[in-house]
């Protein structure tokens, strides 16, 4: 492989602790190396430019059945967005739910190289992996959902952590999954009957277990296995006024539990798209931000990480395994509604949504997402996300960076709101003057998520030995700039390397890269009871046979397997 030397850039890297000093970055055999180790490198002149590791997205809906429902049922999302085939690029279209090809290219254009699919229904794992296979450049993994799975509900009803862990290990292997995802625990199973679980003590119909038991049990099972990532949750009661108490109750379920993982993470719970879970008030009329209460808890508890789910004020497509929420949403906005309940496992819904700056609630939501980031004390535990495409498309990350880095940009936006004064009254953003710097952005978009995923041994930084994923942006932090310059520069990396391969040169995509699919193979002691339960459930209740369930290697042309040994 070619050797590269990226010379004289302003480097921002929390892993080696460098804050915008000029440094050289060397690449050899797909990894970063000391500059002395490269003999005859191709030199990239990065003088006056910003250099950062490849971005890592901890939570986005980019591949799988509900994403494709969003594509196929919204032809309007393709209007005016299509880009024809040219050079190595295949044709690509879609705005809020782009085609897989565009997903890969657009992440790369922003300097991102690793993206995790946030919710994979196990029965549809093949579909998710087919889409991941057809997404160029990016390394990806997918989180199978566990929070409404009948095996989990039955084991945890009796506090059987070891059996839950054995089942989790089995399902991760069967689906080639990466982490334990929980979406509206118990609520989506209740949705099988048109019901919901609205708080953590609301029992699941028939199964006689509460969301609190499910969440706590899955945290314990996750730590029993010592998986790379922690339990990753979307809590109950998403999107409702006053739901911040449910969120705090959910956070508290992690208290007293420490990570038991060799992969270097500090958290036992990752709570995703917290913006949607930080609402006060008891109606849309007195809807308000409770971001300070939420972030205070996060700031003072180091075994939790979160991502923002920041609203970008776009027309988008919401999609989640929270089936009852999507039904609630279609009743609110009267737009088309797709739903799929999945036998024994989960459910999902998809509804288009327009976050209009002329609607007070949407503007408040926008404020909350940014407040969470700006009030965070430790950017290594608070990650940038839009819960793509739920709060907005991932292509807006550079715009969010602009808002986070510039009070002027935020004030421009606030001043343009139709209900400016009411929005200011219901939120705290107007009183926050903090402006994040690029080092903090690198923590929120690179080093932090890589660490939380248990992948800091390969991603998230520029230290020798890490995979050579690195972006060069045409942005000089030491010269005066307008807020929009930030968005422009971070929307289009000048150069991007993925595992040592140059995929973007002079802002042009020049290679489809060498994408890998990450999954976790957790070894556990033989567990005859769980295997007997699996056989019985397939025989009696599933509509596919057990032998036709496991995703074969055929679907993962370039796998990256992370081995975990939990047999001790």
């Amino acid at each position, binding site marked *: 492989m070619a050797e590269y030397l990226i010379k004289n850039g302003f480097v921002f890297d929390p892993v080696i602790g460098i804050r915008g000093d000029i440094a050289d970055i060397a690449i050899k055999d797909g990894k970063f190396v000391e500059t002395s180790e490269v003999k005859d490198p191709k030199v990239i002149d990065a003088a006056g430019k910003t250099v950062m590791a490849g971005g890592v997205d901890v939570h986005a809906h980019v*591949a799988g*059945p509900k*994403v*494709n429902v969003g*594509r*196929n*049922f*919204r*032809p309007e*999302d*393709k209007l005016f967005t*299509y*880009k*024809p*085939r040219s050079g190595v690029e*295949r*044709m690509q*279209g*879609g705005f809020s*739910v782009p*085609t*897989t*090809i565009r997903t890969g290219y657009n992440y790369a254009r922003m300097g991102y190289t690793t993206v995790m699919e946030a919710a994979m229904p196990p*029965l*549809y794992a*093949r*579909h998710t992996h*087919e*889409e991941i296979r*057809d997404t160029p450049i990016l390394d990806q993994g997918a989180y199978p959902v566990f929070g409404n799975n*009948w095996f989990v509900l039955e084991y945890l009803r009796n506090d059987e952590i070891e059996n839950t862990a054995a089942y989790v290990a089995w399902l991760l292997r069967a689906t080639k999954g990466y982490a334990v995802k929980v979406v509206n625990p118990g609520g989506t199973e209740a949705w*099988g*009957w*048109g019901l919901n679980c609205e708080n953590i003590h609301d029992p699941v119909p*028939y199964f006689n277990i509460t969301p609190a038991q499910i969440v706590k049990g899955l945290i314990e099972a996750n730590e029993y296995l010592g998986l790379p990532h922690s339990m990753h949750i979307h809590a109950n009661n998403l999107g409702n006024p006053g739901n911040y108490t449910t969120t705090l109750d959910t956070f508290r379920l992690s208290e007293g539990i420490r990570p038991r993982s060799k992969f270097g993470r500090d958290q036992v719970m990752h709570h995703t798209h917290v913006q949607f879970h930080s609402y006060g008030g008891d109606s849309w009329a007195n809807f308000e931000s409770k971001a300070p209460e939420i972030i205070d808890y996060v700031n003072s508890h180091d075994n939790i990480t979160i991502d923002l789910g920041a609203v970008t004020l776009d027309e988008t497509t919401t999609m989640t395994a929270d089936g009852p929420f999507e*039904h609630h949403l279609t009743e609110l906005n009267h*737009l*088309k*509604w*797709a*739903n*799929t*309940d*999945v*036998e*024994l496992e989960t*459910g999902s819904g*998809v*509804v288009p949504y327009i976050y209009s700056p002329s609607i007070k609630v949407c503007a408040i939501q926008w404020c909350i997402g940014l407040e969470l980031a700006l009030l965070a004390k430790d950017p290594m535990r608070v990650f940038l996300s839009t819960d793509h495409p739920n709060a907005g498309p991932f292509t807006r990350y550079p715009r969010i960076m602009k808002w986070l880095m510039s009070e002027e940009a935020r004030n421009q936006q606030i001043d343009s709101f139709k209900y400016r004064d009411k929005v200011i009254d219901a939120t705290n953003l107007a009183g926050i003057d903090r402006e994040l710097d690029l080092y903090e952005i690198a923590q929120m978009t690179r080093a932090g998520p890589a660490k939380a995923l248990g992948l800091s041994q390969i991603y998230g930084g520029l230290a020798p030995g890490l995979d050579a994923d690195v972006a060069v942006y045409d942005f000089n932090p030491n010269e005066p700039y307008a807020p929009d310059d930030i968005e422009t520069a971070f929307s289009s990396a000048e150069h991007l390397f993925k595992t040592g391969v140059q995929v973007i040169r002079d802002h042009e995509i020049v290679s489809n890269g060498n994408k890998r699919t990450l999954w976790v193979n957790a070894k556990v002691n033989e567990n005859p009871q769980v295997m007997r339960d699996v056989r019985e459930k397939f025989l*009696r*209740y*599933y*509509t*596919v*046979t057990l*032998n*036709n369930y496991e995703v*074969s290697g*055929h*679907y993962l042309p370039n796998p990256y397997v992370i081995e975990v040994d939990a047999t001790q």
Partner: protein
Amino acid sequence: MSRTVTDVICPFCGTLCDDIEVVVSDDGRKLHEVYNACAIGAEKFLHSQAKDRITRPRMRQDDGSWKEITYDEAIDYTARILVNAKKPLMYGWSSTNCEAQAIGSEIGEVVGAVVDNTATVCHGTSLIAVQDIGIPSCTLGEVKNRADRILFWGCNPAHAHPRHMSRYSIFPRGFFTGKGHTARKVIVVDPRPTDTANVADIHLQVEQGRDYELFDAFRVAFKGEQLPDFVAGIPKEKIYEAAEMLKSGRFVIIFFGMGVTQSLGKNHNIDAAIAVTRDLNEYTKAAIMPMRGHYNVTGSGQVWGWLFGFPYAVDLSRGFARYNPGETTANDLLRRDEVDAVLVIASDPGAHFPFSSVRKIYELPSVAIDPHETPTTEVCKVHVPVAFVGVEVGGCAYRMDNVPIETRKVVEPPDGMMTDEEFLRRVLERIKELQGV
């Protein structure tokens, strides 16, 4: 000696049964017997063993006779007609695997083709309705485990999806449905007294072409509002009774077929059917599902969804994807003389398209890629026989509820036969040679 292969997936209909057992010879070259499959499915497996099977590509001669050609010649012919055409049509895709569909999609991009699948004469109207109003649905296991109200509208699974009723809908005993069919109520809406209607608790013999009115009548009845004495030929008492039966269920599932998708009203019927399902969710839990025909028509809609963003009728001829049913659909293009070459794969428009469309295929440079001899192969210039997907080669297929299942190879194809995927891969290579890229 022989051996039995279990958990085999049946590559016939959208029910995609995966519990078939097949007895094959020890060397894996002969297929002897098929168990568990319905009559149609078993025939599909057994047909691969036909003695008179075509195993090499053929080209039509001027005198109308066939001449055997090599695969290389067939690849060259196919590549050339696609490259030389201004706007070729690549139609079918529903009885092959997703791997072949993905390569076909790339060919379509490279040559600027229109790609369309059999939904165009089947559930394409359903796909349009979903774009209007969405679709609350579920997997077939949810039906098996929860549903106690089953409504079949304009479909006849007793004949078209023979194992559907026993595996998923009427008869199985599931987790919350331990009493099987005795605890389920079945309603059939069909102008004909079908074998499915025979097992129904209520058969509404709707007047042909009046489905939309009856859907609307259900919505009125749910709200307890007044109906005229008869709607679509059904007395109002019967409609109220059926509506009450649905509302009183714990989990309602509506299955619908070509009787509503391709009769008067088309996509508007399905709009109304989905609105009925949405309404029912105000009272109980309800879902709706199209009874997809070919075993992987659903898969081709998925593949094009993630590659192009549209489920069928995708026009790639301008260098980017466009979708406009009525303009970019196969029959409309053929009948308006808008395409100048035709590739048909894994389907049989010769048997199912109007004669005016079939004649256009006959008049154009055309190739049919299909394991069988069909009415389509009879009108095409070149016929490329290929291995049977799901019998002689595996690959991914999507069931009618969009659940993907990997089909299995159970027996070797005849010596030297190509698969769809191999053939298309070679065509793509040849196209790139011809285009000099």
